[in-house]
C-alpha cells in the first residue's frame, strides 16, 4: 500500500511516545530521552505509542488501561520488558535488553500508513459514574451543585481551609503516570480553585533501586525544569551523559542563567530547615555524581507539606525532593483505594 505524502512526511518526525514506567525501569527510561528516534511527550494526548517499560505494579494496571484509552488514534503500545495484557491485540514486544528505537520507528510508520491497525479501547466506553437522575436538571447532588451530571463529578460546597468561607471543593486523583510526579506516585487531592486543601498518598513512588540514583536525579531535575516552563532545558537535562563532565557543567550553567533557582519562592515547602529552593539548588549541584546523596531521611510526611499550596507550588515542593527521599516521605497509606488515575483523566466524588 502506497503511503500518502502526508503520512510519509509525518513518519519522519520523531516518534511521540509516552512512557509508563514500571518497577526497576527508571534508568532505562532515561536512555529513551537521549534517543533521536523518539520524542518523549508529557501528555498522552500527544503520544502515538505508549511504552510500557517494565512490569507495571498490579495496582497500576487499571490506570494503565485508562491511560491507553486516552491516546488518540492511530495508536499502538510497546511492551518493553513487560508481558502484554490479554486485551492488547497485536502488541509490539521489545525484549528488556534491546533498544526500542528502530522497532518504534517502523511501527510508527506502519501506523501512519494504515498498514498497522490502530489499537481499540481496552475498557468499555461508559461514564465512570452513572447518571443520577436527581435535581432540577437530573444532575444529582444538592440544589444546583454537586452530583454527577453526565457522569462527571461536580464540586460541592465545603468549608475553606483558611477562613471558614464555604467554597466549592473538588477531589480527584493524579498519578501514578502523571508526568509532573515521580513515576508510581499517585495522590488524591482535594482542591478549592487551584489551592490544595488536603492530600493523601494513594500509591507510593516506585523504588528506584540502588544503581539508578544518577538517572533519577536528572529525571527529577528535568521535571522541576519543566514545572518552571523550561521544556527544552529539561530535555537537555534528561539526555545529558552523566559521565561527560563538560556537558554536565555546561548544563549547570544553562540552569543557573535561566534564573530557575530564583524563580522558586523562598521558604516554600520547608522541611528539616531546607526549603524547596535550597533542595533544588543542591540537587542541581549534585548532577553528574553517581552516588546517592540522600540527606539521611528528612523525616515527616509529604502530605503534611501540601495543604494550603497552590497547584504549581505543590508540584515544585514534591519534585524538590530526591526520588529516594520521596519514597521515604510518601509511604503506602493503610486504607487502600481500589483504583487510581491516568495522566489527565479524573474521577471520584466530591469532598463533602
Amino acid at each position, binding site marked *: 500500500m502506497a503511503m500518502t505524502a502526508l503520512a510519509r512526511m509525518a513518519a519522519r518526525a520523531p516518534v511521540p511516545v509516552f512512557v509508563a514506567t514500571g518497577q526497576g525501569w527508571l534508568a532505562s527510561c532515561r536512555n529513551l530521552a537521549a534517543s533521536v528516534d523518539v520524542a518523549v511527550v508529557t501528555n498522552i494526548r500527544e503520544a502515538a505509542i505508549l511504552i510500557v517499560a517494565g512490569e507495571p505494579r498490579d495496582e497500576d494496571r487499571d490506570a494503565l488501561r485508562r491511560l491507553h484509552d486516552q491516546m488518540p488514534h492511530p495508536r499502538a503500545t510497546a511492551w518493553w520488558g513487560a508481558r502484554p495484557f490479554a486485551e492488547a491485540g497485536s502488541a509490539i514486544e521489545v525484549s528488556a535488553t534491546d533498544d526500542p528505537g528502530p522497532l518504534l520507528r517502523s511501527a510508527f510508520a506502519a501506523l501512519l500508513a494504515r498498514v498497522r491497525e490502530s489499537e481499540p479501547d481496552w475498557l468499555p466506553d461508559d461514564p465512570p459514574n452513572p447518571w443520577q437522575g436527581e435535581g432540577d436538571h437530573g444532575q444529582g447532588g444538592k440544589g444546583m451543585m454537586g452530583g454527577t451530571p453526565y457522569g462527571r463529578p461536580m464540586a460541592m460546597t465545603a468549608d475553606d481551609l*483558611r477562613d471558614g468561607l464555604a467554597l466549592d471543593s473538588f477531589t480527584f486523583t493524579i498519578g501514578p503516570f502523571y508526568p509532573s510526579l515521580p513515576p508510581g506516585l499517585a495522590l488524591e487531592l482535594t482542591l478549592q480553585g487551584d489551592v490544595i486543601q488536603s492530600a493523601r498518598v494513594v500509591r507510593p513512588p516506585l523504588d528506584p533501586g540502588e544503581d539508578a540514583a544518577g538517572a533519577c536525579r536528572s529525571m527529577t531535575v528535568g521535571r522541576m525544569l519543566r514545572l518552571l516552563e523550561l521544556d527544552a532545558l529539561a530535555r537537555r537535562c534528561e539526555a545529558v551523559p552523566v559521565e561527560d563532565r563538560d556537558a554536565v557543567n555546561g548544563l549547570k550553567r544553562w540552569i543557573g542563567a535561566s534564573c530557575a533557582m530564583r524563580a522558586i519562592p523562598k521558604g516554600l515547602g520547608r522541611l528539616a530547615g531546607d526549603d524547596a529552593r535550597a533542595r533544588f539548588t543542591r540537587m542541581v549541584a549534585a548532577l553528574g555524581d553517581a552516588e546517592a546523596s540522600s540527606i539521611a531521611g528528612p523525616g515527616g510526611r509529604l502530605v503534611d507539606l501540601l495543604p494550603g499550596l497552590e497547584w504549581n507550588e505543590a508540584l515544585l515542593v514534591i519534585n524538590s525532593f530526591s526520588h529516594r527521599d520521596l519514597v521515604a516521605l510518601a509511604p503506602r497509606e493503610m486504607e487502600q483505594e481500589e483504583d487510581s488515575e491516568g495522566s489527565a483523566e479524573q474521577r471520584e466524588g466530591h469532598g463533602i
Partner: protein
Amino acid sequence: MTLSDIAFWLFSAGAVWTAWRVFRTDSMVRASFALMLSFFCVAAILLLLSAPYLGIATIFMMAVEMMVMALFMVMFMMNPAGLNPMMMVHQHKVSIGAGVAAFAGLGAAALLTDLPHHAVAAGKPVIRDLGTELLGGSMLIFETAGITLLATMVATVVLSSRSGRFGAADEGSRPPGLEPGGKPAGRAPERDSDHSHHAEHGG
C-alpha cells in the same frame, strides 16, 4: 435602504437575540459571553454612528468586564466548570416588572427625545471633539460622577458585608491564625461600644 441601514438592522437583531440568549442559556459562563456579544452588536452600531472611539472602547471594556464577571461568578458561586445546568432566571415577578419599566422608560426616552439626524461630516475630528468634551467643559461632571460611583461601590460593599469574611462584623470578627491552631492574626476587636478607650491589641 443603504448598506449601513442593513447593517444597523442586522446588528440590532443580533443585539436583541444574544440578549435573549442570556436568559435562556443554562450556564453562567455562556450567559456572560452572550451578554458580551450583545454589547458587541451595540458597539458595532456605535461605529455606524461615526463614534469610532466609543464603539471600539465598548468592545474593549465589555471583553474585560464580562471576563471578570464570568470568572467571579463561577469562582464564588458555582461548580468549577460552570457546565452544570442551572436556571438563569429567578424572582420572576420583580424581574418582569423591572424589565417592563426599564423598557418603557428607555423606549420613551428614545422616541420622545429630539435626536439629531444629520450625517456627521466626513473628516470631522470626532475623537478630538469627544476628548475635548470629556476633558474640557464636562470634565467636572465626569470626574464627579466617577468619584461618586467609586464611593458608592465601596460604601455598598461596606454596608452589605455585615457577615464578613471572618464572621459578623458587629460581633468582632477575627481572622484565624496564620498557622493551624495559632494565635488569631490581625487586630483584636474592641470590647465594648465605648470608643473613648481601646482594648489591648492582639496578634
